[in-house]
């Protein structure tokens, strides 16, 4: 679901309103996530305190929100702009289901702190933006399944996929005359 010009305007305008509280929002969203979805603690095994007020939650929440704020300025090319962050999340094997979970907690945090500004229209635009951001963060996943592949050659993996897919389609359509069988692969 691509971001329209209106979506981008709404997100930028809303982000302007919340930017002074960005650090606190990041902290609160992360704290909520860890409390409501305790399985997410697995990604922070060294921490001793997962509560909203802890120093680690405060620091990491600030980092996450700073990256999201940065992405607001890169809405024209989220995949390109988030490429290295995507590699990082792939390396730590961060289950992409967690992007949705954190998104939900960001939305709840925005609702708590900006109840009047977080209208239904802002809600849908921000949800779309965070979904696009999540897809960009997952873009560099599943690139090292080819033998001899490394994360360094990751970007060349996609043309390999296309060759294999069209190979498979050719084999299937040759075996079944008159029966064309198509399947779609998605980027994740």
């Amino acid at each position: 679901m691509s971001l329209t010009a209106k979506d981008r305007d709404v997100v930028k305008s809303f982000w302007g309103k919340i930017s002074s509280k960005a650090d606190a929002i990041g902290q609160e969203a992360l704290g909520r996530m860890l409390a409501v979805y305790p399985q997410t603690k697995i990604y922070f095994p060294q921490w001793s305190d997962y509560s909203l007020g802890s120093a680690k939650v405060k620091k990491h929440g600030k980092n996450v929100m700073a990256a999201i704020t940065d992405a607001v300025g890169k809405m024209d090319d989220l995949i390109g702009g988030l490429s290295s962050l995507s590699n990082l999340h792939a390396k730590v094997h961060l289950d992409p289901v967690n992007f949705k979970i954190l998104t939900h907690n960001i939305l709840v945090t925005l609702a708590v702190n900006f109840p009047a500004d977080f209208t239904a229209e802002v809600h849908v635009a921000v949800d779309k933006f965070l979904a696009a951001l999540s897809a960009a963060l997952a873009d560099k996943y599943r690139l090292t399944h080819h033998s001899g592949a490394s994360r360094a050659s990751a970007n060349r993996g996609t043309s390999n996929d296309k060759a294999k897919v069209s190979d498979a389609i050719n084999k299937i359509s040759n075996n079944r005359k008159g029966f064309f069988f198509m399947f779609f692969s998605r980027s994740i």
Partner: protein
Amino acid sequence: MVQWKAEERAAIQAVFAKLDYESVGRETLTRLLVVYPWTRRYFGGFGNLFNSEAIMANPKVAAHGIVVLQGLEMALKNMDDIKNTYASLSELHSEKLQVDPGNFQLLGDCLTVVIATRMRTEFTPDIQAAWQKFLAVVVSALRKQYN
């Protein structure tokens, strides 16, 4: 059977105590229809659902918002047996309305967001955790008859 701690029961009661069914119901359903527009297909008889202003002003949306929250109240009153309490509701949604069950989660998420705007800092992470556990049990009960 789902086990509820005393704090969880108290938290869920606290959320319900503050719930203005009319206002929260209408806004929850509005957000569902705006943020996840494919859900409009389930409300074909509701008239104008073309944009958020129309949805927010739609009297059928308002009325149905109350119905949804009254349904949730049934779960609140039967917290130790939500599964059986919801047996006929589950059948209604699966057999008659043919709602894709993924949408129950989405409605729950919208309701949680609206509650967050109302309760604000009173909606602490612990209360949110208890509330979402309650919603998860409700959603699971609604999905029961889909097999």
